């Protein structure tokens, strides 16, 4: 299978990328690791006339931890997985990344590419939502920082404007009393999440003072579960509180059924995996005091 013909550009600067995006409009697509876009192009599900490869731009790659954790858009999964500082600052991220695809996919695929692609069954969106990360983007009029909460807007659709490039992901490191976990019901062939849940919990004086829960794989995009979060707040984070909160995870949620899992089954699994994610997150928060 061979993609439709296209023009290929590999600019050295972000300014050139934005100029190319403005020049070619919606005929152009950005290419990072290419592990979502190239398969789609080979199947002719996508046929952009222009590809703009951003992986030759040095400033878009790498991990810096200076107060906040900052991950360049074209940093690969493998780089994230093996970064010792990330293991300490936000262990949930490399742990989730380990569960993505296979070694070769992780050697090429990128965090920024995955978020910009916004696959409804990708793992990273749930983790990014639970960690309250911010997504940085650059466009013709300058840069802006988008809260994860406002980033995913629909299936395969984000808040990025057409001539904007995702440049970095900024994540607050986990501190005392904070814990996060990601658990996933992995499709045995594709590795994508049939249901994936990321949970973040903060304990203050033995009580849950902050909580974020995000679900991927179940609907058209990764979403926060505010009813679960509200139910956890003020509780002791014990098994009963978690069970009561997690039971609400599928409530009012738009869930898709497909060949692999029916809507009803996915809704049930959303509750089960939310319970597991919260249990692990609380346990870690307790250890982090």
């Amino acid at each position, binding site marked *: *299978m*061979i*993609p*439709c*013909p*296209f*023009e*290929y550009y*590999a600019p050295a600067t972000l300014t050139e990328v934005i100029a190319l995006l403005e020049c070619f409009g919606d005929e152009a697509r950005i*290419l990072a690791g*290419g*592990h979502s876009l*190239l*398969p789609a192009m*080979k*199947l002719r599900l996508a046929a952009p006339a222009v*590809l703009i*490869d951003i*992986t030759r731009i040095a400033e878009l790659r790498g991990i810096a931890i200076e107060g906040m954790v900052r991950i360049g858009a074209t940093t690969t999964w*493998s780089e994230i997985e093996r970064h010792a500082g990330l293991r300490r600052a936000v262990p949930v991220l490399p742990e989730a990344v380990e569960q993505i*695809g*296979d*070694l*070769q*996919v992780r*050697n*090429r695929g990128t965090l920024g590419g995955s978020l910009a692609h916004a696959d409804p069954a990708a793992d990273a969106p749930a983790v990014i939502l639970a960690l309250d990360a911010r997504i940085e983007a650059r466009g013709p009029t300058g840069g802006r920082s988008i809260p994860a909460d406002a980033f995913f807007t629909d299936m395969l659709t984000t808040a990025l404007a057409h001539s904007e490039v995702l440049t970095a992901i900024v994540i607050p490191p986990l501190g005392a009393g904070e814990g996060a976990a990601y658990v996933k019901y992995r499709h045995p*062939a594709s*590795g994508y999440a049939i249901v994936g849940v990321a949970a973040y919990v903060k304990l203050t004086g033995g009580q849950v003072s902050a909580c974020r829960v995000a679900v991927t794989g179940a609907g058209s995009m990764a979403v926060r579960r505010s009813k679960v979060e509200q139910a956890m707040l003020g509780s002791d984070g014990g098994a009963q509180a978690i069970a009561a909160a997690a039971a609400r995870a599928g409530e009012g949620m738009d869930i898709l059924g497909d060949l692999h899992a029916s809507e009803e089954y996915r809704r049930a699994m959303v509750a089960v995996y939310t319970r597991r994610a919260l249990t692990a997150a609380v346990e870690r928060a307790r250890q982090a005091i």
Partner: protein
Amino acid sequence: MPTITVTVNGTTHTSEVEARTLLAHYLREHLNLTGTHIGCDTSQCGACVVHLNGDSVKACTVLAMQADGATITTIEGLTRHDELHPLQEGFWEQHGLQCGFCTPGMIMAAADLLRRNPRPTDEAIRRGLEGNLCRCTGYENIVRAVRYAAEKLHAATGPESEV
């Protein structure tokens, strides 16, 4: 047509390629390195695994253009001084192949795995080869072959080189 320069198995090539040329096709059709197999063509089977700047990648999911300036090793480049690589020997000794179609990719993926983790557990070997499908062996002898190579490499280089 755009031009790329790549170093494959130690030889530098400058080639004109259509932008949509996949690395797997470039290696097979432009350089006649047909050891890189194309199985599924959908990034799943791993028959086309090669090393791109040292990392194992699926050559059916990389554009030749993306490899411009890169160093590539294919299965043909794994043999040194006419001697089989310990992984190649392991697949031979442990009967790690039947039809052999998946073997080049399997070996290239295993080489990346052993470089990162010279003494993998059986579980780590299985996990490291998640991206490679074999329809003949049932994987058991492939795991044995990789273990054989790990032991042979360990015996040859000694534990101190693993630090």
